């Protein structure tokens, strides 16, 4: 058995315009099949990836934001959003998707996946990781 590694996927870019956001999401979904401790961070323009009510018909791209709601099914339960990035862009937690997972240890109670953390807290979280891929 190999040791379980801690992965933190860092998302920094707006969802459309570049392929980083979608690629990151796909890597996370594929990676979730392996025994890893997976968490996600959304900072800078990356916070827009979780914005509610995305409408992409006019730019001719698929709106993949509903897929973030499947992360709980993939046992991705730790999603960090940096408070400062959110505030700098005039967003509040209410503007973001409501992401949840089911806690098997508590009779599948639905729990929030998103944690709002400060820049300093996120820096500590990054320090505790084995691998930090940045998109």
């Amino acid at each position, binding site marked *: 058995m190999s040791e379980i590694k801690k992965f933190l996927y860092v998302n920094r870019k707006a969802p459309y315009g570049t392929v980083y956001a979608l690629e990151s999401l*796909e890597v996370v*979904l*594929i990676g*979730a*099949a392996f025994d890893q401790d997976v968490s996600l961070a959304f900072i800078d323009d990356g916070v827009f990836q979780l914005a509610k009510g995305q409408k992409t018909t006019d730019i001719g791209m*698929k*709106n*993949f934001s*509903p*897929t973030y*709601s*499947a992360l709980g*099914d*993939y046992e991705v339960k730790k999603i960090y959003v940096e408070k400062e990035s959110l505030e700098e862009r005039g967003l509040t937690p209410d503007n973001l998707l409501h992401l949840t997972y089911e806690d098997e240890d508590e009779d599948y109670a639905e729990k929030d996946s998103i944690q709002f953390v400060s820049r300093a807290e996120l820096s500590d979280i990054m320090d505790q990781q084995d691998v930090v891929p940045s998109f």
Partner: protein
Amino acid sequence: MTIEVNGKSLETDEEGYLADLNQWEPEVATMMAKADDTELSDAHWEVINFLREYYEEYQIAPAVRVLTKAIGKKLGKDKGNSKYLYELFPYGPAKQACKYAGLPKPTGCV
């Protein structure tokens, strides 16, 4: 590649997955199954319909592990295991059932 359904010719990729999932109709699944020498039972349809609903909601085809768990929750524990699903879809529940359902190949399937 194309597949003939109800007199229409629908485009598929080289592995037989429907190119445009909006062109799906139940006969697509029936025809694809026939090509695999399979006749679709209600049990097959349960899984196919589940996959279409899952895609509608999340815009992805679930990985087999996720599918198994979700089926168990929705349709009962006796169905939420790989033995049951592999008996229905011997080529792999995620791959084969997604194909019949007109969805793209599940992310992470090689």
